[in-house]
């Protein structure tokens, strides 16, 4: 017989993560609501750079994903892992480093993103020093988790733990893979991969970030908290095991579905589509497993708010994971991509699946940790209904908006010309839906405030149990060959041996192949495609800083409706100097890849100063600070040097000449602007000139240069 061991669970760390989840949830949603309001009322940006849509949109996504859901993951993992393994966390110190480190990273994100410090990779916008900090804290989390697994008192690893492990392993790889960049300065870097390659790495990351940050950890939480809340075993444990392994092996291959009809090779697109469709099976297996857990307990769903939240969460998971594969079908994607349909889709996932499961877990955990009852079940039920209504008001109008706009983009008159030649018509058409969406978001947020009030009241009525005493028999250790060398262990296991050696071989191969293919791929494929001039490069970095890619794509798809509207479709060879790629994923405004030479410089000048002066009814914010600030030219040589290192063929020593060239080109543009009637003191030094230089360059490499002063 094993000896019974006494120990305690660390609730203090769970409480910290729980509070952080609620706090960052409010912050992330407030910023989201703000962004939504700016889309219907551009003046809501307070005419300030830091609070303009392009900059707060990444702030919203990062806060919602990494601050709200991130802390939610850690809250649930730290609570369930200890209980599933019958062991306290490996190290309280690591737990606390993890907690405070993660919060510091969030604060760093909240400061840098509004300042326009971004790498322009969606959901990986943070610059390299913060990337490194994330990696370190993530390792701390890993050490703590695996340490706990090693000292567990329960031999069997419950399926939830497998989901946590997969999350950790895969996020580690994704985070590193998508952040291979060369620093220019402390807060600026360029990615090693360019153009199509950068796009593929980014969406391999982007897709799997959804898979392994928003999905697998939450599935783990579902498999723990749903049965606990229902007080019933999961419907089929066997199915949960199959769910896990099937999901893990399929998910990682579906990334290219974010790049359908782009310049990505066709076969890669089809591969992504096939794997996406296969994903329906494990996803729905998981959803059904969750819902069927409640068989015979549905009467309790009527009264228990925790179960209500969880049921809607699991249903939202099922809806989103059916919709996702549908959107991955090329012909559906041709309609949905770049529209608000995508926005609705992701919000079913985040508001429904992640949000509601988080709320359910909070309502479950807080009373238990404080040894009391939930302050008000009625308020929790109200939260549930307001939140559900909020999701509906959010998603349905956006589905409508997405369809409407896409059909308008594609509509031709019998004469064979586009019906809505002015992009703006398709925007003003869906503004009522944007208003509804803001209403939906507000409702959802009201629900969260109700929850916070309820939690505060609950906390006040209870007594916090920081260290929850527990007892369990020690784990019986199988007879060990003491003093045995580790290699002897593996030798007795041929399969493991094979796998380990295979991995070793692949790593070796990678190290050899990798630098070679980088060099090879930097050879220009279209002769006319030239590197950016220093001024264009600076303008491009302004485009990145202002987050223009949040609303404008740079990827004309090979459809008649798009080539008729924008011009020749985009070719992969045009992007070889694009670090980072700026294809974007949403068209709140028109595509810009063929913008160069389409309009004169003065038009851009006036449009950026006051978009509604050139485009009445536009919802684009004005950018007056570009007209006040002088361009920081001092960073140019370092940028040229970094890009040269990465293989952009600037001549040797060009970094010394770059500033002169930049100023010469700026003078030329200022001259042109003056002849077109623009007056501004010190015009050639202003940021706007660099941005105009970049916009006028876009997509012009493979078409005739525009006539000067057109």
């Amino acid at each position, binding site marked *: 017989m094993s000896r019974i061991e*006494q120990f305690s669970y660390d609730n203090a760390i769970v409480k910290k993560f729980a509070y952080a989840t609620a706090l960052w949830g409010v912050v992330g949603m407030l910023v989201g609501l703000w962004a939504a309001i700016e889309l219907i009322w551009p003046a809501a940006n307070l005419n300030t750079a830091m609070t303009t849509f392009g900059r707060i949109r990444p702030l919203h996504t990062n806060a919602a994903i990494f601050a709200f859901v991130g802390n939610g993951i850690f809250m649930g993992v730290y609570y369930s892992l200890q*209980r*599933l393994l*019958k062991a306290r966390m490996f190290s309280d110190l690591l737990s606390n480093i993890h907690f405070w480190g993660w919060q510091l990273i969030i604060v760093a994100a909240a400061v840098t993103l509004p300042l326009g410090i971004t790498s322009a990779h969606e959901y990986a916008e943070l610059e390299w020093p913060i990337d490194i900090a994330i990696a370190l804290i993530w390792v701390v989390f890993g050490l703590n988790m695996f340490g706990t697994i090693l000292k567990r008192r329960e*031999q*069997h*690893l*419950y*399926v939830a733990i*497998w989901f946590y*492990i997969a999350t950790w*392993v*895969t996020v580690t*790889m994704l985070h590193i*893979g998508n952040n291979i960049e060369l620093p220019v300065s402390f807060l600026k870097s360029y990615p090693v*991969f360019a153009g*199509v*390659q950068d796009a*593929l*790495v980014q969406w*391999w990351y982007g897709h799997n970030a959804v898979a392994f940050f928003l999905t697998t950890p939450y599935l783990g939480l579902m498999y*723990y908290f749903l*049965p*606990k809340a229902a*007080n*019933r*075993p*999961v419907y089929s*444990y*066997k199915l*949960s*095991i199959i769910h896990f*392994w099937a999901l*893990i*092996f399929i998910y*990682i*291959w579906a*990334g290219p579905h974010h790049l359908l009809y782009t310049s990505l*090779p066709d076969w*890669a697109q089809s591969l992504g589509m096939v794997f996406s469709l296969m994903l329906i099976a494990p996803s729905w297996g998981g959803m059904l497993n969750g819902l069927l857990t409640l068989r015979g307990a549905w009467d309790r769903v009527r009264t228990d708010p925790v179960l209500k939240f969880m049921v809607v969460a699991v249903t939202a998971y099922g809806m989103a994971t059916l919709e996702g594969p549908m959107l991955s079908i090329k012909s559906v994607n041709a309609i949905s991509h770049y529209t608000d349909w995508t926005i609705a889709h992701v919000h079913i996932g985040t508001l429904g699946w992640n949000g509601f499961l988080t709320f359910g877990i909070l309502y479950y955990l807080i009373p238990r940790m404080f040894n009391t009852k939930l302050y008000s079940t009625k308020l929790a039920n109200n939260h549930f209904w307001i939140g559900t209504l909020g999701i509906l008001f959010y998603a349905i109008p956006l589905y409508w908006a997405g369809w409407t706009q896409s059909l308008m983009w594609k509509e031709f008159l019998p004469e064979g010309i586009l019906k809505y030649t002015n992009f703006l018509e398709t925007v003003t058409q869906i503004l009522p839906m944007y208003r509804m969406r803001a209403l939906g978001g507000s409702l959802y947020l009201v629900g969260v405030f109700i929850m916070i009030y309820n939690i505060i009241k609950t906390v006040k009525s209870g007594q916090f149990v920081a260290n929850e*005493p*527990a*007892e*369990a028999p020690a784990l019986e250790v199988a007879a060990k060959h003491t003093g045995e060398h580790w290699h002897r262990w593996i030798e007795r296991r041929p*399969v*493991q041996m094979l*796998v*380990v050696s*295979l*991995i070793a071989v*692949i*790593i070796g*191969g*990678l190290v050899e*192949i*990798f630098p070679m*293919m980088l060099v*090879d*791929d930097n050879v220009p494929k279209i002769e006319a495609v030239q590197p950016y001039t220093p001024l264009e490069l600076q303008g491009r970095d302004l485009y990145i800083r202002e987050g223009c890619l949040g609303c404008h794509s740079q990827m004309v798809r090979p459809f008649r409706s798009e080539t008729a509207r924008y011009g020749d479709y985009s070719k*992969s060879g045009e992007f070889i100097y694009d670090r980072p790629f700026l294809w974007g994923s949403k068209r709140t405004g028109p595509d810009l890849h063929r913008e160069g030479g389409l309009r004169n410089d003065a038009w851009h000048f006036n449009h950026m100063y006051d978009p509604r002066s050139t485009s009445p009814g536009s919802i684009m914010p004005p950018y007056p600070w570009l007209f006040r600030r002088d361009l920081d030219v001092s960073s140019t040589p370092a940028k040229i040097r970094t890009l040269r290192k990465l293989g952009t063929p600037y001549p040797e020593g060009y970094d010394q000449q770059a500033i002169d060239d930049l100023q010469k080109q700026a003078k030329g543009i200022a001259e042109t602007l003056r002849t077109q009637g623009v007056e501004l003191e010190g015009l050639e030094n202003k940021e706007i000139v660099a941005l105009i230089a970049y916009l006028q360059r876009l997509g012009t490499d493979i078409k005739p240069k525009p006539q000067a002063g057109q």
Partner: protein
Amino acid sequence: MKIIFFLIILSLLIALGFLAAFIWAVRSGQYDDDYTPSVRILFDDKKTDSE
């Protein structure tokens, strides 16, 4: 487009890692019992007050 081979190899690597984990799980008896774990998690090991 050689980047795709990089990503495929990297993804395969992860998949192989998980395959190894799967083989370990099956061989070490993790899945010998595919029912009781689901029930066991429902019992909280509250410390008994008998002492």
